[in-house]
Every structure is written in structure tokens, then in C-alpha cells.
């Protein structure tokens, strides 16, 4: 089984990927870390960032957080507000 994920991109991650959202097909139960591994493979420049987190429904996700089809998923490069 697979699921469709929509990943929002911001800042330098958006620039590296070249678009503000990515539609991805992922295996059912894909973890946040699994998603990052897929993205690092497709966009090697993402792996060179100081950090890259996954957010699910406005919260930072742990590595093993399972993703679900209707989650609001986002890639969070190093924040620099303030």
C-alpha cells in the first residue's frame, strides 16, 4: 500500500527544490525520517543544510513519527526569526 503526501517547503528548502509544495508517493506508515531520506536522495543540496526537520500539523515531528495521508507536512530548514 502507498499513500500520497503533500509537503510544504519554506526558505532555502523551497529554493533548493524549486517549488513551494511537493506531491510525493510514500509507503504506508512512512516515518518522518524516511521522508527525509527520500528527499535527501532526490535533492542532495538539502543534506548540506545545518539542519532539516519535519513538521506534522504544526508540531516538530520525532524521527519515528508515522506520516498519514491527510497530515499537514512541512520541511523546516534552520529557522532564523527574531
Amino acid at each position: 500500500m502507498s499513500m500520497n503526501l503533500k509537503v510544504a517547503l519554506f526558505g532555502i528548502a523551497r529554493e533548493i527544490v524549486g517549488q513551494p509544495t511537493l506531491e510525493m508517493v510514500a509507503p504506508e506508515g512512512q516515518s518522518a525520517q524516511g521522508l527525509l531520506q527520500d528527499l535527501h536522495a532526490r535533492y542532495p543540496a538539502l543534506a548540506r543544510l545545518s539542519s532539516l526537520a519535519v513538521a506534522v500539523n504544526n508540531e516538530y515531528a520525532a524521527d519515528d513519527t508515522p506520516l498519514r495521508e491527510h497530515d499537514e507536512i512541512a520541511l523546516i530548514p534552520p529557522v532564523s526569526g527574531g
Partner: protein
Amino acid sequence: MLRLRSAGRSFLLTHLLSSLIHIDLTDQPIDVPTALRSVEADGAGAINTFIGTVRNQSTGRPVVRLEYEAYDSMALHQLRKVAEQAAERWPMLQKVTVVHRKGTLYIGDVAVVVAVSTPHRAESFAACQYIIDTLKQVVTIWKKEFYEDGDVWVAAHP
């Protein structure tokens, strides 16, 4: 005035918090006097305010302008969480206001204002500093610096 524990937050408490914590993310210039007035309280003898402005240089390189980009819904959610954490840690906190700007900013423009009020002064400094320090670690806002000859996403690379 804010007295809460991490777990078992009641409806009343949530309601109280939302009336004492004011969070905003705006693409308009921040009105600093309004932000300060918003934390006034008869039980507060101390107000501490941090204002972050755009400097004319960054690590020695002249800055022309900045652009702030935000993941709005998460930034607002995380800003509120940071303010609530401060209210848990300093239960005497009276009011908290955090306003962050987004969009294009020039030298001297105000990027962020944090204002807190407490009965006594030491806690106003500690809570305000906790909020701005934590904001910079967790809130989903990104700053791009523009120089005469290029631009950089701040903190993006090691």
C-alpha cells in the same frame, strides 16, 4: 495571575491564557507603543520589552535589506506555545505580547517585539529573554539577508 501546570489544562485556564497572551505575525510595520500598552496591568510593576531591529551589517558585511518568510500557521502556533511555556515557568507573569514582522525590511525597521509584564522586575527580564531566545530556536520564520552583491539565508549552512 497565570497559574497553570503542563497537564490537565482546564477550559477556564485556556480562556484566561488566550486573553493574557497576544501573538501576531504581520506584513505591516509593527506599532511598538501599541505592543507596549497591550501588556499594561494594574498588578504589574515591571514591563520588559525586547525590540529586534534590522542592523546595517551582518558579520561585517553591509546589509541592504532583509526578507522574512514565515510558515504562518506553525509560526503562530509555536509563538503561542513559547508564551505559554513562559507563563508556566513564571506563574507571576501578567501579560505577554509577541509580534513578528514578515516581508521586506530595511535598516532600522522593527522585526520583532516581545513585551512582558510582571509584579517585580527580575522576572520580567528573565521571561522576556526566555521568549526571544526560544523564539529564535523554534519559530518557523526564515530571514534572507541581501547585500550589495548577493544574498544569504541566515543560519542555513554550517
